[in-house]
Each structure stands twice: as structure tokens, then as C-alpha cells.
């Protein structure tokens, strides 16, 4: 039996996140991911070094970017002999890449690698209509000029309109915001509670920037040196003045307590613990365990509450309870997602009926929640959010002291959720 292997978070690097259409409007996923990898390479002296693997992904992805991560590696300072893989699980992508590498490292298939994610809502792929696509493909198959012309003659002006991607669930036709609006209503999450959470997110992120917390987590890109969505001066009053954008006129979800479309990339460097020590790399935190879960939103389940299920299973497997963590990172897709998730854990009825638990899972100390801000303030470039959270949490845990534990919870489209436990080395 070999000595047990343990994957540790060495550190991370991300670009500042900015609102879609802003400073990164001309930057592609490839540009952003390459920049984030280069900043990581510089921080840890990886230029010219061959790593075992880089796992990365994007949610809004051009078909030409089938090998996005590998191409980013080739454009980066890393050795071109570093292999790469693209993964995708909607907003869970970033955390899944970290789990993927953790598993490989734990199994001895790798010593060191990078988990990464990127999304550019500015550079989203625009596709042609299905009818135009079918007509062109038919013309392409035609062997004679007349049949080719006949195939093309099927094209109508309306078919020429480009189709922009939407954050819509294919099986329900509802946007994520509309789904969440239903969840918000069902769980009775108030506008005030949502705005409070959004305010805390901005205040925490602003404080983290002011204290230099991100000095070794973020590298500027295209002249941007701080997260562009952060509003350090926002207030209850300003948030309360915003009009609802989801849930109709009586809705409680606004642009202030929902995440904006964002551009950015994030990376996390992982290594086998002994390898990291031998190679002069920091060891911030171990990944203890991870879990993925899904709900059936097509049958009416809350679309974004799958993490509630994943956490329940993860805690059961680890023999831990919800209160066993120094820090909690619940991704703020919407303020009400975080609040509904916590409400679900506090609800004995939900925990019994939906999670199969004997009683409520419990509540979490709000002072330990998203202490350095989360997606409402930082923004949410879908696949990059996991990397942002993991690197920041690992640093926070390490500063807190050896053994400190943190829980990461990320909801994803398709009724999915991915969660993980980190523990400071």
C-alpha cells in the first residue's frame, strides 16, 4: 500500500472580473484564460515548466474553441508539452476542474496541475437559425447546381437573423431568473433579506480589496486592476431603489441582488502535498471531499437548490454536521439562491421530505458566510466562479490556521449542484 496521497491548493490567479461589454469586450475566452494562466505562472515560477495537466472550461463556448484549454496552454508561458482537457458543467465547471485534478492527484495519475474556468459573456457565440443551418447543410450535400439552388431557395429573410445565446433552461423554456423567482416566492425570501445579502457581498469584497487580500490572487488584465462590478459605496437605500427584473411587478429580485453577465477567468494550482513541499510551493488547503447532485426541475423542483442535496450527502459521508466549518462559500447566483439554500437546510420538512434526513440539517453562522464577498459583488463569469471561490477560500482558511475547514457550494444550470470541503494545511 502506497502512502496516502493528498492534493493541496497551492494558490490561484484570476483576472479582475468585469461586466460584459466592458473593458474585456474585445477579449475572447482564449485571451482571458491565457492571461489568467500567465499570471499564475508568474506567481509560482511556472514559466517553461511542464505540468501534468490543465483542466479548464467555459460555459459560453464557440464551436471553434473545442480545445480551448489546450490552446490557452499553448499561448501561455507554461511548457507547450503540458496537456489539457476541457470540462463543462455549467456554473459548476470551475469547481469540477478542481475536483477532477484533485482526484487524479490523489490516485497518483498526476503530481501538479491547474483547474481553470473562463467565460466571456461579451464574446458569446452567435449562431444562425436552425432553418438557415439546415438549408446550408443541404446545399452542401447537393451534387448538382440546380439541387443546390433549390436547397438555398428555402432560405427566408427571417432565417438570416442571428440567434444570441440565452440563459434559458431548454426543458422548461424559463430563464434561470424566472426559475429562481419561483423559488424565491416559494421560500418566502424577502426583498430586504436579498438586499442585505447583496450589500454584505459588496462590503466584504470592498474590504478584501482594501486589505490587499487579492494581491496574490488577482493579476490585472487590459488595464483593469479591480473587479469592475464592485460598488463599494452601495447602500441599503440604493439597492432598495432598484426595480424588480424577475418575478413580475411584485418580484423581489433586482439587478442589485442578482448577478450580472460578467467576463473573467480564474485558475487554481493544485499539487500533491509532498510534491508541493519538495518544489517550494505553498500548501494552503487540502480538498477533503466533494459531491455533485441534481434535482428534477422539470418536475417542479427548485432549479438552483441541488447544492442543498449535495451538501447533505457530503456531510453524511464525512460524518460531519453543517456547523463544522469556519467559513462557508455559497455562490451568489442570486441573493435568494443563497437564502433559499440556507432556508432549505433549516427546514425540517424539506430536509425530511427532499433530503431524506431525520431532521433539519441546521443553520450556518452568517458571520462566516462569503467573508470576502461573492458573485453579487465580484460578478459571475460562469465557469470562472469555482476557481475564484476555491483560491480565495484556501487562502482564507490557511490564514485562519491549520485544520480550519470551509464548505463550497455552487449551483449550476440543469438543476445541478457541486460542493466541496476544504481544510487548511
Amino acid at each position: 500500500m502506497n502512502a496516502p496521497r493528498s492534493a493541496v491548493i497551492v494558490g490561484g490567479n484570476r483576472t479582475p472580473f468585469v461586466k460584459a461589454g466592458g473593458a474585456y469586450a474585445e477579449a475572447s475566452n482564449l485571451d482571458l484564460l491565457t492571461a489568467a494562466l500567465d499570471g499564475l505562472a508568474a506567481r509560482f515560477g511556472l514559466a517553461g515548466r511542464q505540468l501534468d495537466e490543465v483542466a479548464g472550461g467555459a460555459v459560453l463556448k464557440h464551436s471553434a474553441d473545442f480545445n480551448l484549454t489546450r490552446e490557452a496552454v499553448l499561448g501561455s508561458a507554461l511548457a507547450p508539452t503540458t496537456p489539457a482537457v476541457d470540462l463543462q458543467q455549467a456554473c459548476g465547471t470551475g469547481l469540477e476542474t478542481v475536483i477532477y485534478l484533485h482526484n487524479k492527484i490523489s490516485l497518483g495519475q498526476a503530481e501538479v496541475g491547474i483547474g481553470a474556468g473562463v467565460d466571456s459573456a461579451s464574446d458569446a457565440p452567435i449562431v444562425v437559425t436552425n432553418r438557415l443551418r439546415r438549408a446550408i447543410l443541404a446545399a452542401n450535400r447537393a451534387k448538382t447546381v440546380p439541387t443546390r439552388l433549390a436547397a438555398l431557395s428555402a432560405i427566408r429573410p427571417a432565417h438570416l437573423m442571428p440567434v444570441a445565446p440565452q440563459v434559458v433552461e431548454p426543458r422548461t423554456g424559463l430563464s434561470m431568473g424566472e426559475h429562481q423567482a419561483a423559488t424565491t416566492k416559494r421560500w418566502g425570501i424577502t426583498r430586504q433579506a436579498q438586499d442585505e445579502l447583496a450589500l454584505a457581498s459588496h462590503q466584504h469584497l470592498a474590504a478584501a480589496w482594501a486589505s490587499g487580500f487579492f494581491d496574490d490572487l488577482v493579476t490585472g488584465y487590459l488595464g483593469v486592476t479591480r473587479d469592475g462590478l464592485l460598488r463599494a459605496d452601495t447602500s441599503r437605500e440604493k439597492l432598495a431603489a432598484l426595480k424588480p427584473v424577475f418575478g413580475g411587478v411584485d418580484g423581489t429580485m433586482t439587478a442589485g441582488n442578482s448577478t450580472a453577465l460578467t467576463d473573467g477567468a480564474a485558475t487554481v494550482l493544485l499539487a500533491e502535498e509532498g510534491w508541493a513541499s519538495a518544489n517550494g510551493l505553498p500548501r494552503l488547503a487540502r480538498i477533503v471531499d466533494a459531491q455533485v447532485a441534481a434535482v428534477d426541475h422539470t418536475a417542479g423542483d427548485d432549479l438552483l437548490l441541488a447544492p442543498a442535496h449535495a451538501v447533505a450527502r457530503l456531510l453524511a459521508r464525512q460524518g460531519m454536521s453543517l456547523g463544522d466549518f469556519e467559513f462557508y462559500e455559497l455562490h451568489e447566483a442570486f441573493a435568494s439562491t443563497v437564502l433559499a439554500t440556507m432556508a432549505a437546510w433549516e427546514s425540517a420538512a424539506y430536509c425530511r421530505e427532499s433530503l431524506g434526513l431525520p431532521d433539519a440539517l441546521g443553520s450556518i453562522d452568517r458571520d462566516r458566510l462569503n467573508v470576502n464577498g461573492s458573485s453579487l459583488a465580484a460578478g459571475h463569469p460562469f465557469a470562472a466562479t469555482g476557481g475564484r471561490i476555491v483560491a480565495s477560500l484556501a487562502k482564507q482558511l490557511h490564514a485562519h490556521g491549520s485544520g480550519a475547514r470551509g464548505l463550497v457550494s455552487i449551483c449550476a444550470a440543469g438543476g445541478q449542484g457541486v460542493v466541496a470541503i476544504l481544510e487548511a494545511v
Partner: protein
Amino acid sequence: MATMLEQLFYSGPGQAVAGKLGLPEPETLRRGRVNPSGPVAVTSLTGSSLGSDTLALLGVAASAALVDDGDEPPAYPARLGALVVDARGLTLLPQLEGLRAALRPAVKSMEPSGRIIVLADDEVSGLEAHAVRQALDGINRTVGKELRRGATTNLIYVRPGTGATDLASTLSFLLQGRSAFVDGQSWTVGPAAATSAVRERPLTDRIVVVTGAARGIGAQIATVAARDGATVVCVDVPAGGEALAALTNQLGGTALQLDITAADAGERIAAQVASRYGDDARIHAMVHNAGITRDKLLVNTDAARWAAVVEVNLAAQLRMNVALLDGRPGGLADDGRLVSIASTSGIAGNRGQANYAASKAGVVGLVRALAPELAGRGITVNAVAPGFIETEMTAKIPFVQREVFRRTNSLGQGGNPIDVAETIGYFLDPASAGVTGQVVRVCGQNLVGA
């Protein structure tokens, strides 16, 4: 407008006019680890063999210098690459004639970017000897202004007990293109307890930390240190991280995004070194390059402008030195190097730069005080004082004013960031153990502050 004027000035017709006005095209200076192309001549005025011994140690073949002792000065058969005059032991005013006699034929035959190097005693006794010692400085400064086509002259005062091994790195630096923009200067070299041989890549397996490394002179300092074999830790403010990362990846070091005015900046630098390179790792050289300007006439300078410049340019390095010198893992090694950036503004004063001049003159004071304090640990402390260097910062000066700054030195041009970096590289060289407490101007013998 400034750019158009500049383009016109440097165009063909523009240069013809400039030539008529007595503004010749600047000489392209010899740079890098390149010796003079012509022969090297050496002479000793009173029998000291230090000059010829040091040349021999460097493997530089040298012939006897010609001496002017008749009506017509003798002519060298070929353009002279360099003249080394060992003027140690000079105590009497008539002995200065020997220097004149050696310089006259050499100056006449000097190749472009040629070198004159004069060695003299640092410690002398007697009134006449003191007068002679200072007279050498006057001669050196004057010859600097008379030499043409990028040739330079410099004067090295040698402390008692200094051997060829102690002097070798200085002589090598002065002969080579590395000293291209150092002209008309004098500084002192002394004996060192232990000195390394002069090598092509003297910083191999050594860690060099450079603050303000993201761009300009700092980037060039890091680049030269890496060229000389160093593992570089490039430090700059988080906002400069993008350029910092690109440079670091190019040089193969590690980047540290850090505001050096943070109270724990020194501790964080040491922590990064210990973390990346092991608890036993020590910094060979700390280059305090980061600096800012907040120019205003004193009457318009408020407390904030004053404090920001003094804090970044001076107070921060004082604090960092305390942490780096306390023996912690990742701190400065014994036999290490501390280098700061002074400025001709600090030496001469500069209109609109009271805060900057304060900080840069303060650097000079710091270097002089810290050098003897750290001598016992073999740590040297030195500074460079750049004159007009072509950087993004100086490119913002209006063209006419900039052209004046450029031209008002003996080499008739601005220096390049690499000239500052090479001089710092000379301080960083393990072979420069005998060079401490010195402030070397890299200014092409600028009229300002002379």
C-alpha cells in the same frame, strides 16, 4: 505636436539643420559585456603595478602607453581602445605632468566609446598630496568633457590594501560597454575580506529581488540580473501585475504583487523567497528601484504629495531593510547586496521636485550610513544616480525641454535604462565585494549636479 516636432528634428533635413546648429548626431555607444575593440594601453606614474596586475587578472592584453615628451605628441599606431593610468602614489604637484603626458596622445587616438581609467590613492597625507588627489578629479571631469564620440573617462580612488582581485570587477565594468553612460565620475574601491573572480554570469544560483520591476528601469534591472544568471523575484504594485507577470514569465523568476509601503512588505518578500526557494534560501541582492514622482513647485506642494514620495522612495526601503536584515528565512544573505536608486535631482536639486530630491538625497545619506554598519557581514550598500534616461516617464517631458536635457551632458544623448541596470549589475557582482558606500552617477556627465 511634440511628436511631430521630434520627428521633423530627427528626419534627414532636420538633422542637416541640427548639424549646422552644432547639434551633431549622437554617437551609438558601445554597450554590453563587450571590451574595447582597439588595443589597451597602461602606464604607472610612480611604480604601482595595481593597474597592470588587474588587467592581467582580467586577461586583457595591454601595451605600454605612449608618453608626450617632445614638441609633437607621439601617435598610437591604431585607434586606442582604452588607457589605464595608475596614478597611485602621486603626492607632488609636478607629478601631475605624468598624467598630462600620458593623456595627450591617448585622447587624440581614442576610438569611439573608448575608455580612460585613472587609479588614484583614496587616503593621502600632507597638504600637497590632498591638493593632488583633488586635482585628479578636476582633470578627470575636464577630460570627460573633451573626449568625443562616446569615449568616457572615470577615476577610481583605491583604498590601502586593495588588490587586483578587489579591483577587477570595477576595471572590467569600466572597460566594457556596461559603463557606456558613466562618464567623468569618481568613486572608491577598497579591499574585501573575500572576493569572487570576475565571471560572465556572476549571479548564477543567486536570488535578486527588484522592486518596481514591471516596467522601465526596473524591468531592465531584472532583465540584466537574469542575463547574469540570477533567479529574479520581480516586485511591483498589484495594479502593475499584468506587465509584471509578462516580464517574470520571460525571465523565469517569480512575481510578487506588493505595495512596498505596506508595513510588512519586507516580511512578505522574505516569505515569498523562503516559500519558493526553501527556508535556507537567502536573497543575494535587494534592489530598491520602486519610486514615484509628484512634481510641483514647493509653493504648490501639499502634505499628501510630500508624504507619498518620501514614503515610497525612502521610508519603505528603510522598513524593508530592517526585516530583510534580521536573519529571517528568505532575508538578505551575509555577503549580500543592497542597492538603491538616487538621482541627480537629489544631488543637485531640481525645480519642482523638492519632495523627490528629499527622497533621493535621503537615499545617498542612507547608503553612506548603512555601508559601514553592514561591512562586518560582507553586505555592500550602494546607489546609482541616473541622469536623463530615456523612459516612458521622461518621454512625457515636452520635446524641446527633453532635447535640452538629453544634450546637456558629455555624451550628447540620453542614457538607456540598461545603462542604469548594468551599473547596478556591477554592484550586484560577487566580485564587487570591495565596492560599498558608493553613489555612482549614470548620467553621461550631466552638467546638472556636477
